[in-house]
């Protein structure tokens, strides 16, 4: 039986690092305000609301990084104006109100639909029906959903149902993403200039996808020196739930020793994303244990993931019942 034990199954001595999780570090990160006049206060993130008469003024605000997108108020939506407005707002995301079927249809046809704006008024079921009629139920997988509470009722459950990326006037509502690195697996020792197989398990507990390209970064640190490790297969999009992937990191030539390993998740503009962990460094990295680098050759690590699934061990012996 010994050859079927966990110890025998693990062909290579591996480290399983499970970073401790924290919750809700940024309660305001997924909150937006609708701004319809250029003189509006510009704290926090905001959605530019475009009307025919304010188009030029709103377009002038597009360069502000706090402007997360723009929306065109329903009723302003003849095709010519939509065309003009979308052009004037440049690269900003076009967040289309689901209550305006004509605008949704136009944005889909033109391929410019950059997000959905769901407004909850007296009855949230009106918005549910609008989503259903236009078959927008799965759109959260492609573009962010902005939920604005225009009434006074409780509508948190609907924001979650629609996978809201951002919410307005909904304090305490869970929106956006909550990302944690649940576990990282790597060998206890790797070879300088060789290969370092890594397995990442990420979880997004929030209701929304991350709607920007992301990249994982990994680095080693010893004293004041840091060495970035190149990653080839890090996911460029993060959806809901778990995301597991494997890497074979090509190690640079390094002096033998024990290095602190650190990871981070970065957006397309290079900003680090806040993860649900403690221990964040000033430049957005988190600790992930220690990695020993030596000069012992391990060529087998280059193809380790082809036929070795380190978590696939199947216990053949029932252990004692827990709690006895």
């Amino acid at each position, binding site marked *: *039986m010994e050859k*079927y034990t*966990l110890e025998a199954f693990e062909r290579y001595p591996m480290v*399983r690092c*499970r970073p401790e999780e924290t919750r809700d570090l940024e309660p305001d990160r997924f909150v937006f305000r609708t701004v319809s006049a250029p003189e509006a206060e510009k704290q926090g993130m905001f959605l530019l609301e475009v009307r025919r008469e304010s188009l030029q003024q709103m377009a002038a605000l597009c360069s502000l990084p706090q402007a997360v997108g723009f929306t065109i108020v329903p009723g302003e939506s003849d095709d010519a104006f939509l065309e003009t407005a979308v052009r004037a707002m440049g690269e900003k995301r076009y967040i289309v109100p689901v209550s305006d079927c004509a605008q949704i249809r136009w944005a889909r046809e033109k391929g410019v639909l950059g997000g959905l704006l769901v407004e909850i008024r007296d009855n949230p*079921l009106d918005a*549910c*029906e609008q*989503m*259903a*009629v236009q078959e927008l*139920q*799965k759109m959260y997988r492609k573009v962010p959903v902005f939920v604005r509470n225009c009434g006074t009722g409780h509508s948190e459950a609907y924001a*979650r*149902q*629609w*996978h809201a990326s951002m919410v307005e006037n909904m304090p305490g509502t869970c929106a956006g993403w909550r990302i944690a690195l*649940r*576990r990282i697996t790597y060998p206890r020792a790797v070879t300088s200039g060789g290969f370092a197989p890594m*397995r990442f*398990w990420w*979880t997004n507990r929030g209701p929304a996808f991350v709607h920007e390209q992301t990249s994982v970064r990994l680095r080693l640190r010893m004293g004041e020196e840091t060495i970035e490790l190149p990653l080839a297969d890090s996911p460029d999009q993060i959806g809901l*739930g*778990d*995301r*597991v*992937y*494997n890497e074979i990191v090509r190690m640079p030539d390094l002096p033998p020793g024990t290095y602190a390993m650190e990871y981070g998740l970065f957006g397309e503009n290079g900003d680090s994303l806040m993860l649900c962990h403690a221990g964040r460094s000033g430049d957005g990295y988190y600790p992930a244990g220690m990695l020993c680098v030596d000069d012992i050759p391990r060529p087998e690590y280059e193809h380790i993931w082809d036929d070795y*699934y380190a*978590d*696939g*061990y*199947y*216990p*053949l012996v029932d*252990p*004692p*019942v*827990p*709690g*006895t």
Partner: protein
Amino acid sequence: MSIWQWTREPDISDALLSNPGIGFICAPGLMGDPEEVHDNRGEIVEKYRFAPSQKTWNHPDSGLSYAGGAWRDIEKEEGCYDWSGFDAKLERAGRLGCNAIVRIMPYSLTVDIPSWLRERFPEDPEYPFWRIDPNTTDYAELWARFVRAFAARYDGHPLISSVDMAMCGAWGEGAGSEFVEQEKLEKIVLAYCEGFRRTPMQCLLHDPVSVGLIRRHRQDIGFRVDCLGDMGGFHGKTWNHMQDFYPVNIENFDMHDTWEKGPVVFEACWHMNDWYRAGWDIDYIIDESLKWHISSYNSKQTTVPEAWKEQVAGWVRKMGYRLELRRIRAGSENRCVQVEMLWCNTGAAPCYQAYPIVLRLENAEGTRFFRLEEDIRKWLPDEDHLVRAATGELCPGTYTLSAGIDTGVRELGMLQLAIQGRDGEGFYPMGTVRVE
């Protein structure tokens, strides 16, 4: 002018529902009126119910059962099949108002392969969870032949919720399937995939070789695992099912989105009461299972610790599908009743059976039923769906309109919806409609 005569928004119910194919596997041993209720260790526990109307003690009611069988009991003589014992198990599930997850196992650690096969291969193989070596015998061919016979008889059976793909290993739970020659394994995979075209299936989430082979042939097969709740009972913090095997391999075996087409089925590691005594985090276990889109949970028919009653009730409300008819409007045009319905699945998984929505129209002259074409299997969690329907032509008059979802199976009846107002026939009366 609008054709609509009214719009209704039924009151949503937070009741625990018992519907086919989902929830806890039912526990007949905890039903009735026992003087005492014992936990899995034989200790007397305080009796309680999840709701006064429930018929099971210390365990939620259910619309799902389990029916298992052993190869040696069915194919006692080579090529001759006696299904009577297995039929009786399905009938028993039906009498409980349940459909059943089914599995015929090739053998277990205590139940041998058929005796006619044992005579040919008297030696047990070296691998501890095998009773016959699939690589050096014709086990794969013979088991595949049996699976084809099984499928020929039971594919589409109205009382079968889904079928476990048992390929090798004790209890058919897949042990050692990564060591089986692919050609051999494929014979068994094909027997299931070609035999069961209508009944949903789930495979063991065992290893990338067998799962990859299955996925090459079918993309609509869910997965089953049998150690939900293990937070460190095997190897402490080093390795466990909840934090290592399941989360990583669901992804690594490319099974993360199979729940959209095939059921995700869990069985307890030990018993829930053992988790409780070990001090494990029930909220974590529940949340993870919901993240993986669980449809049903086999608690091995043992008690739920009363301290966890509320968490488990919340779990049952999310497990599998939970269908709300949120809004309905009705009117008439051209002597047909027109209906628009807004439905939402607030559960964690879709329904994997194509049960039809049925409209019932009643007046003094009689009752008519209209089955709609909508495929409710496409209603994924959190999605609202608008269903538009028109009845056939009706005589002028006033009709009472009711809606429901019919399993079409006498023993299962109509689905329980997450709204108030169910009548004795399982329909939900909505209002009257004038046809002129």
